[in-house]
C-alpha cells in the first residue's frame, strides 16, 4: 500500500511550514518539502492541513510548493559504521557531507547514514534451522578494535533461520533469511531501522547497583552515578559543564559513548573530533574514537533538527545497549533542546506554560531520561543478556538560576545532581562541583559494592571527609564574623585539613596528563592520606603539639603532589608516605 501523500505549502513561518492536501499522512510522518527536498516532520494535523517542522533553513520557500510524505516516521539507521561517526540531528553523516558538499551545510544535502560501499566481515553465531526471536544475536561484525558489533534480529520478529552465511558483506547485503511466524520470508541485512521517538523494547529493567567509574574524583568518590543511572549537570556559563561532559566521554568506563552536542558550539564538536582519535582508552590502549559516536547539531544549525538530535542519539545508544553493552550518553545541552521545543511551540501558537515553555516540557524530559537504565535485553529464553544505558544531561539555566523550568523538570527525574558553582569556577577550582549542594541517590546502593571491592572503610572515610567539609563551611561563617585568630587550634586544623581536601583531592586538573584520570584505587588512597593526616594531627594536638609545627611538616607538600603520581607507582608511593606521615606526626614533641 502506498502511504505517500502529496500536498502543497500554504504558510511558511521560520521552521514551521503548513501544507494542505495532507489528509492521508500520519502524525510524525517524515515529509519532503519543495523541490529542494528539505526534510521535515508532521507535528500537527488540522483537517487536511499538516503543520510541519522543517529540519533545514526555510528561506526561499513559498506557498504552492510541494510537500510529499514518505509514509514513515523519523527513523535512524542502525548497523556497522556508526562507531567513530559524526552525524547531525537527523543522522546525516557530516564527515561524508564535507566531501560531498564542502565546508558548509547546504540545504537538501543527503547521504545515507551508514556507508553503503564499505565491506564488513560477518561471522554467524546461529545456524540454519535455529529458532530465533527479536533481539537474538545471529552473528557478529568486528567494527573497530574496541567494538564487536552484534547483529540482532529486529524486535517483533520470530521464526526459523532458513539461511545464514559467513563472509564479507556491505550493510545492505542479505546475510540471513528468516521464516517469520507471521509475515513469512524476511531477509536480514546488517542494517536495521528504528523510529527515534519510540524507545527500543527490552525484557525488563533492573535496579542499578554498580558505579560507573569515571576517573573523576568528586564524582566517583562523593557523588557517583550508577551504571544505567541518570545524572544532570546544571550550571551557569563558564562553570565547566562541557569540560565535565568531555571528561566523562573520555574516561567513563563504558563500551560505547554517544555524545550529543545539541545546540552548542561548533568548536566543541571539533575539539572532540580532533582530540578523541589521539586519546587512548585507559583499558585497551586503542583510540577513544573507536568507541564514540557524535551527534552534532550546533547552535547555528537549524533549530528543528536540534529537537530531533536528542532522540536520534538515544535511539542509537539503545541499539548498542540491546547488544549487551554498557553505553554512556552525554547530552550537552538539554536546555537548548528545550528551547527548540519552545520555539516550535510558539510558532504553533500553543498556550505557553512557564517562561514560554510548552506545558508538556516536563513529560518530554521524563520520557527522555526514562529511556536510560540497566535492562535484561530482549532475546530468546535460553539467553541472559544485560545492557546498560547511562544518561547524563547538561542543563544551562539562565543566569545559573535553578528555578528555571528546564532545571526544575530535570531535577524531578534524575537521581544524581552535580551542582556547578560559578564561585568555585572563578577560583579556578575545577571541576566546580559544589560539595555541599550536590547529591547522588545511588550512594547507598553503590556503597556496598565499593566497600567490597576497594576497601572496607571506603564509605566511612568518605563520610568523615564530607563531615569535615560541612564543618568547614560552618567555621568559615565564624571566621567571617570574628576572624581566624579567634579559633582554637583544633578548629584551625579542621580548616586546614578541609582546605587540603579541597585543593589536594577535590580539585582535579583535566588538562594535566596524569591528573585527568584517577583510578578508584588511587582515589581511595589519596583520600585516605588526606584524612590520615587530619586524624593523626588531631591526636598530636591532643598531646598538645604545636599547631605551627604541624603545619610546617614536609609531608604536607607530598600530600598535595599525590595527584601527579602515575598510576603504576601509586601503591608503593602511598605506603611510603603513610609511614612518613606517621613518623613525622608521631615525632612531634607533646
Amino acid at each position, binding site marked *: 500500500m502506498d502511504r505517500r501523500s502529496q500536498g502543497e505549502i500554504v504558510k511558511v513561518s521560520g521552521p514551521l511550514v503548513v501544507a494542505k492536501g495532507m489528509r492521508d499522512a500520519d502524525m510524525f510522518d517524515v515529509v519532503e518539502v519543495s523541490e529542494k527536498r528539505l526534510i521535515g516532520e508532521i507535528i500537527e494535523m488540522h483537517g487536511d492541513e499538516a503543520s510541519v517542522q522543517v529540519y533545514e533553513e526555510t528561506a526561499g520557500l*513559498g506557498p504552492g510548493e510541494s510537500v510529499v510524505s514518505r509514509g514513515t516516521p523519523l527513523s535512524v539507521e542502525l548497523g556497522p559504521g556508526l562507531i567513530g561517526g559524526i552525524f547531525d540531528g537527523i543522522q546525516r553523516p557530516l564527515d561524508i557531507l564535507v566531501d560531498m558538499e564542502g565546508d558548509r551545510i547546504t540545504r537538501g544535502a543527503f547521504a545515507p547514514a551508514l556507508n553503503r560501499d564499505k565491506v564488513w566481515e560477518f561471522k554467524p553465531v546461529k545456524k540454519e534451522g535455529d529458532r530465533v526471536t527479536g533481539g537474538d544475536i545471529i552473528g557478529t561484525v568486528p567494527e573497530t578494535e574496541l567494538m564487536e558489533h552484534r547483529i540482532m534480529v529486529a524486535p517483533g520478529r520470530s521464526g526459523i533461520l532458513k539461511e545464514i552465511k559467513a563472509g564479507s558483506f556491505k550493510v545492505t547485503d542479505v546475510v540471513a533469511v528468516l521464516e517469520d511466524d507471521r509475515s513469512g520470508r524476511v531477509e536480514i541485512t546488517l542494517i536495521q531501522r528504528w523510529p527515534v521517538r519510540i524507545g527500543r523494547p527490552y525484557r525488563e529493567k533492573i535496579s542499578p547497583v554498580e558505579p560507573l567509574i569515571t576517573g573523576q574524583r568528586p564524582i566517583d568518590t562523593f557523588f557517583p552515578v550508577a551504571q544505567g543511572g541518570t545524572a544532570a549537570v546544571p550550571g551557569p556559563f563558564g562553570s565547566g559543564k562541557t569540560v565535565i561532559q568531555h571528561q566523562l566521554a573520555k574516561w567513563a568506563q563504558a563500551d560505547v559513548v554517544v555524545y550529543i552536542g545539541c545546540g552548542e558550539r561548533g568548536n566543541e564538536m571539533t575539539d572532540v573530533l580532533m582530540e578523541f582519535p589521539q586519546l587512548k582508552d585507559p583499558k585497551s590502549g586503542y583510540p577513544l574514537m573507536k568507541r564514540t559516536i557524535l551527534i552534532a547539531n550546533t547552535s547555528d544549525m537549524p533549530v528543528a533538527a536540534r529537537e530531533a538530535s536528542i532522540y536520534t542519539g538515544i535511539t542509537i545508544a539503545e541499539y548498542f545497549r540491546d547488544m549487551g553493552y554498557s553505553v554512556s550518553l552525554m547530552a550537552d545541552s538539554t536546555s537548548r533542546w528545550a528551547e527548540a521545543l519552545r520555539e516550535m511551540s510558539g510558532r504553533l501558537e500553543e498556550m505557553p506554560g512557564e517562561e514560554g515553555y510548552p506545558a508538556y516540557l516536563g513529560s518530554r524530559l521524563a520520557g527522555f531520561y526514562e529511556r536510560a537504565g540497566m535492562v535484561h535485553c530482549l532475546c530468546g529464553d535460553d539467553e541472559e543478556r544485560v545492557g546498560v544505558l547511562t544518561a547524563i544531561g547538561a542543563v544551562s539555566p539562565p543566569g545559573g538560576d535553578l528555578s528555571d523550568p528546564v532545571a526544575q523538570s530535570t531535577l524531578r527525574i534524575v537521581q544524581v545532581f552535580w551542582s556547578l558553582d560559578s564561585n568555585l569556577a572563578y577560583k579556578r577550582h575545577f571541576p566546580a562541583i559544589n560539595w555541599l549542594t550536590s547529591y547522588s541517590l545511588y550512594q547507598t546502593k553503590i556503597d556496598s559494592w565499593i566497600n567490597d571491592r576497594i576497601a572496607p572503610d571506603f564509605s566511612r572515610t568518605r563520610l568523615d571527609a564530607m563531615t569535615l567539609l560541612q564543618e568547614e563551611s560552618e567555621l568559615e561563617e565564624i571566621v567571617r564574623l570574628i576572624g581566624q585568630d579567634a579559633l582554637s587550634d583544633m578548629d584551625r586544623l579542621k580548616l586546614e585539613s578541609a582546605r587540603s581536601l579541597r585543593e589536594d583531592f577535590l580539585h582535579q586538573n583535566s588538562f594535566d596528563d596524569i591528573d585527568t584520570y584517577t583510578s578508584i584505587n588511587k582515589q581511595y588512597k589519596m583520600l585516605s592520606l588526606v584524612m590520615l593526616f587530619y586524624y593523626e594531627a588531631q591526636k598530636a594536638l591532643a598531646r598538645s603539639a604545636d599547631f605551627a609545627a604541624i603545619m610546617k611538616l614536609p609531608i604536607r607538600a607530598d600530600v598535595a603532589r599525590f595527584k601527579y603520581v602515575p598510576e603504576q607507582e601509586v601503591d608503593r608511593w602511598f605506603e611510603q608516605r603513610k609511614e612518613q606521615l606517621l613518623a613525622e606526626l608521631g615525632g612531634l614533641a607533646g
Partner: protein
Amino acid sequence: MAREYRTIEEVTGPLMLVRGVENVKFDELGEIELEDGRLRHCRVLEIEGTDALVQLFESSIGLNIERSTVRFLGHGLELGVSPDLLGRIFDGMGRPKDGGLDIIPEAMRDINGTPINPAARDYPNEFIQTGVSAIDGLNTLVRGQKLPIFSGAGLPHAQLAAQIARQSGVLNSEEDFAVVFAAMGITFEEADFFINDFRRTGAIDRSVMFINLADDPAIERIATPRMALTAAEYLAFDLDMHVLVLMTDITYYAEALREVSAARKEVPGRRGYPGYLYTDLASIYERAGRIKNRRGSITFVPILTMPDDDKTHPIPDLTGYITEGQVILSRDLHRRGIQPPIDVLPSLSRLKDKGIGEGKTRADHADTMNQLFAAYSRGKDARDLQIILGEEALIELDLIYAGFSVAFEESYVSQGFDANRSIEETLSIGWKLLSMLPANELKRVHQEYIDQYYEDTPEEVDG
C-alpha cells in the same frame, strides 16, 4: 520585471502586511517605493496563502498605504563582495557612507550565510598576542575564537577593543590581516573614536566598517552584523586573510530584535526578549572560526553593555553560553584607576588551554595562570575579611595573600591602553608576583617550574 503590488493592508511599528501577493518566498527581500520615488527595504517574515507579513528595515514615516508600491526581488538580503571592500565605510545596510563609489561586486552573498559543517571546522589553537596581560596571560585569545567583552555603561570597552585591534599584529605582520568593524546603535562619538583610532594607526586601509548609529533606523541593526560577517567570511575564506571582527553593541541589536518580536505579538521569553534570542545570536556568533585547509580565520570580539552591570541579564547570559568565554570589565576596578579594568576571575577563555604552553607561549604558562587565579581569588577573600574585621584578625599568610592581590591588580592588570606587553613580559610579571608567596603555597605549579622561575625572597612566612 518583478510584479508591483499596491496592496499594503496595514503598517504597525516595523511590520507591514501586503495582501494578494503571488510567488513570494519566506525571507525574500522587498523594495517599497514611496510616492516621491524614495526606496525603503523590507523582508518577508511570514507568508500565508497570498498574505505576506514583512519587516521594514527603515522607518515607516511618510509611508502611505494607498500610494506606495511593493516589489519583491526574488532573493534575500545580499552584500556585494570584492577586495575593494577594504578601506571602505558603509552604513548598516551595506551602502557606501564615505562618499566613495559603489563597490563593483565580484559576487553577491546572502547575508544570512550557511552554517559551517562541524566536521569541516579546524580547532582554534594559535595564540594571538594582544599585548594585554590580563588577556594574554590569563584569558588567552586564540585565532578563530569568539571572545566578547562584557562591559557596562561608561566603562572603557571601546579603548580596550581598539587596543586589541591595534596590538594584535594587524599592522606589523607579514600575513594578511584585516579588521571588520560593525557598529550597531552606538553614538557618533564612539564610532568616531574607532574611525580615528584606525586612521591614526593606519589600520583603516585594512578595515571594512559598517556603521549604524544611534539615530539610524533601529531595525536596520538586524542586518548590520550579518553584513559585517558576510564581508569577514569573504576576506577570510576567499582571500585567505586573518580577520578580526569587532562589533559594538550587541545589546542594541537584541533590542531591535525584541522590537520586531513584540510587534509580531510573539510569546516573549525572559524580559520580553523573544524565545529564539539564543538561536538568533548563535547564527551570528558561530560564524567565527577556522576551516580545515583554509588559510584565513575569523576571530570575533563583540562588545555588549550589560544593563545595570547584570551578568544574568538575557543578553550577556545567552552570549556567554554561545561564545568561547568572556572578558568582563569591572566598575570597581575602573573607579580605582586600573586600566584596562578587566575583572580576571569571572573572565574566561575556553580555548586558552590549547593555545598556550610549550611551542606556543611557554611551558610554565598553564601552571602560573592557574596559580595566579587561585592566589588572586584567595587574596580578594582575605581583603574582604580585612575590611570587616581589620588587619589584626588575619593570620599572616592571609595578609600576604591580601598584599599579593593588590599588587596583582596594580602591576599585572593595570598597564594602560598604550602599553604593548610581550608574552614573556607578562609571564615574568606573573612570576614576580608569585614570588611574593611562600614556595610551598604554589600547589598548582609543577616543581620544575618553581625551581626554574621562583625568585627566593626573604619574606618567608612564619606559620
